[in-house]
């Protein structure tokens, strides 16, 4: 059922087994799985079925750290959430992304890739990919296009798969609308999270619409699935019972904000030998899907083997290739042609740029804070985002690109130039529009916000779904992992409440 909160009476109280705030990839996934298990679900969505400027403006905030996209320009406040705009990049996190890495402070998820694998398979179906197939050899065989081999043993090729992309609001609207045990309540904004008297359980979501309707939702379990910034914002803003906000005894709510720093074109690769690089172009392959098949677009990317990242103390990354024209002076004082002419047995004239999408180390000082004197139309304090990338990260990326250059050189495939200054990478840091880490998943309640089941350490019946719980961000776009974690949390709630 689909209802509009503006049609509710002020003072109304709705109730359900589970109330989910946020109808994006995470919220819709959870609602679908929970309703299939027979639980009664209320799914709250701030927006309507289409873009609404006044609703979108609720996202506005300021930035005091690295410039990123405006806060109201890369998350979308409507039914379907940011899947209404996403590009469909999918790739699971690597096993090593979950591990505690001594050289990355505060790394280490309390779950492993194995814990998530069954849910990644289900996530594949949600985002309309084929069967879960991430083995490089299998994929390369299906693709029929070769991957780069290097005798260095350090170079890794992996790949992305592309969702059509699935617009969750469009794709799953009918299913949710017809479900008897799901109520999608549009134009519902969670404003406050009052706790029961013992402060260990949430009593209700207090909600409001932009037209002034105030209502509440009671449930056996509550889920915040509003995005990496909004989830933290409402927890911090719910501070009338506990000044630090809800679920914040660790003091980490809003901290450890992570992005995927993008260094597009940071390295130039002068190819010196005719080489088939078609696997690294976006191309379609026919993949198995149950008893049938599905056409899926894939694209190869370069990186380094996990053992190399560990040995060298590097962060994860992927680098896609794009053919480029590089003129004199564009690779600093030594031109690409000068280097090419030095390479023996050169035969090729192509030049590629490496477009890096990197992991960043989680840092406590990279955070969002509330701006109490700057409130939105609902009276909620807006946020300031202070996104920080530590210089150790760019130093590590510089070394990573040097190793990529050595691997391509070892393969007899030319030379690589990287924009550097001293031991640092020197390039424009662009955001990916991925908001992660502000409600991190840890086993230790003093170091994070949610446990391995995405339940808030401090609040028994409050759960977080989405990239806010990412302990580290890996080098994969987050949506597939968001959906997998949502499936896992939904299963957990079915067990808990079923």
């Amino acid at each position: 059922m689909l209802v509009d909160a503006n049609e509710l009476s002020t003072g109304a109280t709705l109730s359900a087994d589970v109330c989910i705030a946020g109808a994006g990839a995470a919220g819709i996934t959870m609602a679908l799985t929970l309703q299939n298990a027979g639980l009664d679900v209320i799914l709250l969505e701030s927006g309507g079925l289409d873009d609404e400027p006044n609703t979108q403006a609720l996202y506005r905030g300021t930035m005091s750290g690295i410039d990123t996209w405006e806060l109201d320009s890369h998350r979308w406040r409507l039914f379907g959430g940011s899947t209404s705009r996403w590009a469909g990049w999918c790739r699971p996190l690597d096993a090593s992304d979950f591990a505690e890495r001594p050289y990355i402070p505060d790394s280490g998820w309390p779950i492993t890739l194995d814990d998530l694998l069954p849910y990644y398979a289900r996530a594949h179906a949600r985002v309309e990919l084929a069967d879960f197939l991430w083995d490089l050899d299998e994929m390369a065989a299906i693709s029929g296009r070769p991957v780069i081999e290097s005798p260095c043993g350090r170079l890794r090729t992996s790949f992305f798969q592309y969702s059509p992309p699935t617009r969750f609001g469009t794709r799953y609207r009918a299913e949710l609308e017809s479900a008897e045990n799901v109520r999608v309540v549009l134009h519902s904004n969670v404003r406050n999270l009052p706790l029961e008297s013992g402060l260990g359980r949430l009593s209700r979501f207090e909600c409001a619409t932009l037209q002034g309707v105030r209502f509440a939702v009671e449930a056996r379990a509550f889920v915040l699935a509003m995005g990496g910034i909004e989830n933290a914002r409402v927890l911090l803003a719910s501070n009338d019972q506990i000044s630090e906000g809800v679920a914040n005894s660790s003091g980490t709510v809003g901290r450890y904000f992570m992005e995927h720093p993008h260094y597009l074109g940071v390295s130039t690769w002068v190819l010196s030998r005719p080489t088939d690089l078609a696997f690294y172009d976006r191309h379609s392959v026919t993949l198995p899907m149950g008893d049938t098949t599905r056409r899926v677009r894939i694209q190869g990317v370069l990186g380094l083997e996990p053992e190399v990242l560990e040995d060298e103390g590097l962060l994860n990354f992927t680098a896609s290739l794009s053919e480029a024209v590089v003129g004199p002076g564009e690779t600093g004082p030594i031109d690409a042609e000068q280097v090419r002419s030095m390479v023996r047995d050169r035969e090729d004239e192509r030049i590629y740029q490496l477009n890096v999408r990197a992991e960043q180390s989680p840092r406590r000082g990279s955070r969002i804070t509330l701006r109490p004197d700057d409130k939105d139309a609902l009276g909620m304090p807006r946020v300031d985002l202070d996104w920080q990338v530590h210089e150790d990260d760019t130093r590590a990326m510089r070394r990573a690109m040097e190793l990529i250059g050595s691997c391509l050189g070892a393969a007899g495939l030319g030379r690589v130039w990287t924009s550097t200054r001293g031991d640092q990478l020197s390039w424009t840091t662009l955001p990916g529009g991925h908001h992660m880490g502000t409600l991190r998943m840890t086993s230790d309640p003093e170091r994070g916000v949610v446990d391995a089941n995405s339940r808030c350490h401090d609040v028994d019946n409050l759960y977080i779904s989405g990239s806010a719980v990412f302990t580290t961000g890996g080098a994969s776009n987050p949506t597939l992992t968001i959906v997998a974690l949502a499936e896992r949390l939904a299963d957990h709630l079915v067990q808990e409440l079923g």
Partner: protein
Amino acid sequence: MNPMKPDVALARRRFLQSVAANLSLIGIASCTDEPIREVSGPREPPPPEAASYAELLELYFGADGLADADYIGGYYAQIERVSSSEAFDYTSSAREIVDAAKSLEAAVSDLEDQVTADFVAARVVDVAGWTLARTEVELCVLWWLI
């Protein structure tokens, strides 16, 4: 472009998009370590034995590559601020390979193998952002000395 965003957001997004579209230009503006404007020859004459490697280097780099090898070798020597004798010492590994070879052709082949081995072992040198094999940088420096 989303029609609902305010003007400020639009302007910012346009800026970021223009950044993405012009990355190479923006990157270059901040890419080097105090770049050397002009590469000049060695201040002092090289050790006399350096000249004995000239024929080998001409064979290795080919006529088309010599000027570029000279520039790259000179650039590296200047950015490292090494004297001619220090530069010559720097080239000892490459010279050992050449000295041990039975012919110029064999030396070239051995040097090619060593360049590959350097890359395999990540024995590389950053020259103005280029990741080059240590051996090929030595050869460039040696040619610059000559």
